[in-house]
């Protein structure tokens, strides 16, 4: 059965810390991996990764895919309280999107 596993489930850090969130997958017919940030309501798109080893960056956030290890990491440097959210990883296989449980990040002032 296809599955996407995220770790840790929950993380509490202080402002300024750097965090690394993990997503590993066992999915047949893998196409791409996406990261979303969910604050109060709708998840918002962060990154889509299709090729291994190519880092995508957006401000303090970056992400990279390792197809050999079937995993991806999402890095957030110099965290701020506004980064507090649930970070979701999803894998696209053919036309289906399979989500992990998410990592709940709380950044303390």
């Amino acid at each position: 059965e296809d599955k996407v596993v995220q770790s840790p489930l929950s993380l509490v850090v202080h402002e300024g810390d750097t965090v690394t969130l993990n997503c590993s997958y066992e999915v047949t017919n893998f196409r791409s991996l996406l990261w979303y940030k969910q604050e109060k309501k709708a998840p918002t798109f962060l990154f889509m990764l299709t090729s291994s080893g190519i880092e995508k960056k957006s401000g303090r956030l970056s992400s990279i895919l390792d197809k050999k290890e079937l995993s991806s990491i999402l890095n957030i440097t110099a965290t701020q309280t506004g980064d507090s959210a649930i970070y979701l990883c999803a894998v696209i296989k053919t036309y289906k999107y399979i989500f992990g449980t998410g990592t709940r990040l709380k950044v303390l002032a």
Partner: protein
Amino acid sequence: EAGVTQFPSHSVIEKGQTVTLRCDPISGHDNLYWYRRVMGKEIKFLLHFVKESKQDESGMPNNRFLAERTGGTYSTLKVQPAELEDSGVYFCASSQDNTGELFFGEGSRLTVL
């Protein structure tokens, strides 16, 4: 441009009652998905429409759930009769094609008492 909108935001009903959730996707998006998140668990796929056709409904829990997308525009998800375990947040998402970014609605929270 309007995003994906869902109605209602929150519905509280008693076991055995019926609830209908509505989703309006982004205009022009042929692909529409329903997902459900139960407390503490991952977002789980329910079904996928391409225009008005059900592409995949393998995630629908049982025949108490009925989804429709008449005319290929908005979609409804009806739960009848509702059970306690149906409580959760029902997300709708749409995309232009099925290989890229999914755009999510804010979700409809369903509480069954």
